[in-house]
């Protein structure tokens, strides 16, 4: 669409168009990044606090505290998603709320809630991973390939 429009314009107008476009998109990127940094950072700080909580009050080490921390974060994400708060955070934060595991949790959970009217098997079961499926697929497959390469390298290369 933009290209067709541009052909009808004079060179000066085209130049202005580019200039305008540059001006328009630049500002939100910086702002979005700042917001993403802030919210993403806060979410990770909360995660750090939770993992210290598990280490302090239960017998978890730095190594083993990761799992319950992630599970707790996803649980919190479920509550916030169910109450409709996470969507509002996401509008503000962009990638800042999408990149942490809470964002992954939100994708799965909101899909599950949304499709419950279609029944638990056909609705929830089959739509849950509509958004998150590609993450799981490529994550698992990449992990498989990398582990395979590394194992072969270790065995034959004697690394």
């Amino acid at each position, binding site marked *: 669409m933009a290209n067709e429009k541009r052909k009808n314009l004079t060179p000066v107008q085209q130049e202005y168009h580019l200039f305008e476009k540059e001006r328009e998109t630049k500002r939100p990127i910086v702002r979005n990044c700042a917001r*993403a940094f802030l919210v993403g950072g806060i979410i*990770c700080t909360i995660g*750090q606090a939770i993992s210290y909580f598990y280490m302090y009050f239960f017998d978890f080490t730095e190594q083993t505290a990761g799992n319950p921390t992630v599970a707790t974060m996803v649980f919190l994400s479920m509550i916030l998603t169910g109450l409709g708060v996470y969507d509002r955070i996401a509008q503000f934060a962009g*990638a800042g709320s999408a990149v942490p595991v809470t964002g992954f949790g939100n994708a799965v*959970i909101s899909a599950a809630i949304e499709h*419950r009217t279609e029944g638990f098997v056909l609705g929830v079961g089959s739509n849950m991973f509509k958004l998150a499926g590609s993450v799981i697929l490529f994550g698992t497959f*990449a992990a498989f390939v990398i*582990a395979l390469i590394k*194992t072969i390298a270790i*065995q034959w290369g004697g690394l």
Partner: protein
Amino acid sequence: MLTMFFWAFVVGGLICVIGQILMDVFKLTPAHTLTILVVTGAILDGLGLYEPLIDFAGAGATIPITSFGNSLVHGAMQEAEKHGIVGVLTGMFEVTSVGISAAIVFGFIGALLFRPKG
């Protein structure tokens, strides 16, 4: 301990900024962005670089989605060390990232508890 919070904030925030740049500058969909981050995490762990990042930044490295790739590779490698190449396969089936299983469990519970909003 406070230093840990500081670096968790900074590193976690920076990973999110990378995600935001992928979305805004390279015009990728969120699904593409997250996929790239997960694969990147897996590659970094394959190169042995993700573990130091976790040591350094704690939750700043374990909370972003990149740690999925890391924990999946880790699980597979643990089995591989015991059983060789066959172990990679069996290891893959044995491990899932907690994030994934937690999302499944809480997703279902969420669907039971909450009603969709209009």
